[in-house]
């Protein structure tokens, strides 16, 4: 999960000696493939009991079976919906507060300390309280996701707005831009790289919040699927859920990365081919 949060904005310099293209593309995959093959072999030949770790092929087949009997897809849908709602709510709050604090000194004095105090709470620590308040229904999960998302978005929005080059703001004033146009043409575009960085970080947080919330208290969703499977020692289903969580996390990060590349086409660090 942690690698989702790491941006790689700096284009690497071309090294004098570069391995050939095919080698460069394939070599990073060698170790994962070998590990997978080893896992498969060890499970097949009974060196690892299936209740500890089933073979990868078995996990795949379980996945196919769960799709066919119509339980997996709705559960994934419910989980995604929770993550999306929580992200939208937390993102809107974080962005709104961030814009207010970034622009207005008064708003900064009034709000910044409070938000930073709330941020000091590890967001998972509020889970028991949330369950008391909202039970184990949808509200609790959405609340937890929103709570986790608010702060990275808030901090990066404030930072981005404060980092906008004051010389460009001055230019905007000389050019006679209205306050609204100044915000739209100069301040928000200038803050966008930082805001998008916050979005990427928040996506990882949202996903983590969802996994925890669904694992501890849920009656649907893929986290519930895994906990339910635990009761029956269905290790294959548990592994499948872990893989799905990972896959969706990677997919979300790719979307964020695509967004960066589209919106920051002007930025030298994101221009053209970006290296991971």
């Amino acid at each position: 999960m942690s690698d989702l949060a790491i941006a790689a904005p700096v284009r690497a310099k071309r090294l004098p000696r570069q391995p050939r293209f095919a080698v460069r593309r394939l070599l990073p995959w060698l170790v994962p493939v070998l590990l997978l093959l080893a896992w498969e072999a060890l499970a097949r030949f009974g060196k690892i009991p299936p209740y500890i770790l089933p073979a990868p092929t078995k996990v795949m087949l379980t996945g196919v079976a769960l799709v066919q009997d119509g339980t997996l897809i709705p559960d994934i849908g419910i989980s995604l919906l929770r993550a999306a709602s929580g992200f939208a709510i937390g993102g809107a709050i974080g962005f709104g507060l961030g814009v207010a604090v970034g622009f207005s000194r008064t708003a900064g004095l009034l709000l910044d300390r409070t938000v930073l105090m709330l941020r000091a709470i590890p967001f998972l620590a509020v889970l028991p309280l949330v369950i008391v308040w909202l039970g184990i229904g949808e509200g609790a999960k959405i609340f937890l996701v929103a709570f986790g998302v608010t702060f990275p978005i808030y901090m990066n929005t404030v930072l981005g707005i404060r980092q906008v080059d004051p010389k460009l703001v001055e230019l905007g004033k000389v050019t006679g831009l209205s306050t609204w146009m100044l915000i739209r043409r100069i301040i928000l575009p200038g803050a966008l790289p930082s805001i998008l960085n916050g979005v990427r970080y928040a996506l990882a947080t949202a996903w983590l919040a969802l996994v925890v919330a669904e694992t501890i208290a849920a009656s649907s969703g893929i986290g519930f699927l895994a906990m339910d499977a635990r009761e029956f020692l269905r290790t294959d289903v548990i592994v499948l859920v872990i893989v799905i969580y990972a896959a969706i996390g990677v997919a979300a990060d790719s979307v964020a990365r695509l967004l960066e590349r589209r919106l920051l086409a002007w930025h030298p660090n994101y221009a053209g081919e970006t290296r991971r």
Partner: protein
Amino acid sequence: MTEAVTVRGLRRAYGDRVVIRSLDLHIERGEFVVLLGESGCGKTTLLRALAGLDPIDGGRIDGPPRPAVVFQEHRLLPWDPLWRNVSLGLSEKDSRQLAGAALAEVGLGDRLDDWPRNLSGGQAQRVALARALVQQPQLLLLDEPFAALDALTRIKMQSLVKALVRKHQPGVLLVTHDVDEAITLGDRALVMREGAIARTYAISAAANGHRSHPEAIELRDRLLADLGVGADA
């Protein structure tokens, strides 16, 4: 001729420190005025006051509420293609056409959709000039716009500015450290000292024309002496 700006009794102070004391200045449209002075004499403060960027503490400025400014740095918005940069302050529907025409005037008419990061320093400064001229300003303020350019680019930029000023006829106030630049471009040179205009020189077309013209040589010596650099330096 109509006036571009008139300043009477301008005063500007930061706390106890008076930066501009009772300054008078008049610039006609089409007139190219160059402002010289040692660092800290108040040149930039005057320009910022004329640009409306800083408040004034006394006197009055009768001029356009919004003169066009070209700064030492190009200050292009890196997230906007060139035509969006040039049309920044325009509200007209055909702002792309206007920006295109302005870019063509500075020799970048084929780069409308290019990004600022693909420009050289001189090109970027030409875009900044186009952005200033597209407003059809009554008064054009130039704050050492050539200072960061290499020598050859600077010479080209100077003749471009001169040609475009002749065409659009704004009143120009150019702040510079470069005495030769002042003699080449200016109709009038002002030497500022301790917050006031200490000397004024008219510059003839002959002196504009060639740096080895006797008038140009004489003026250079006098300006250098005014700026505290000996004539033999």
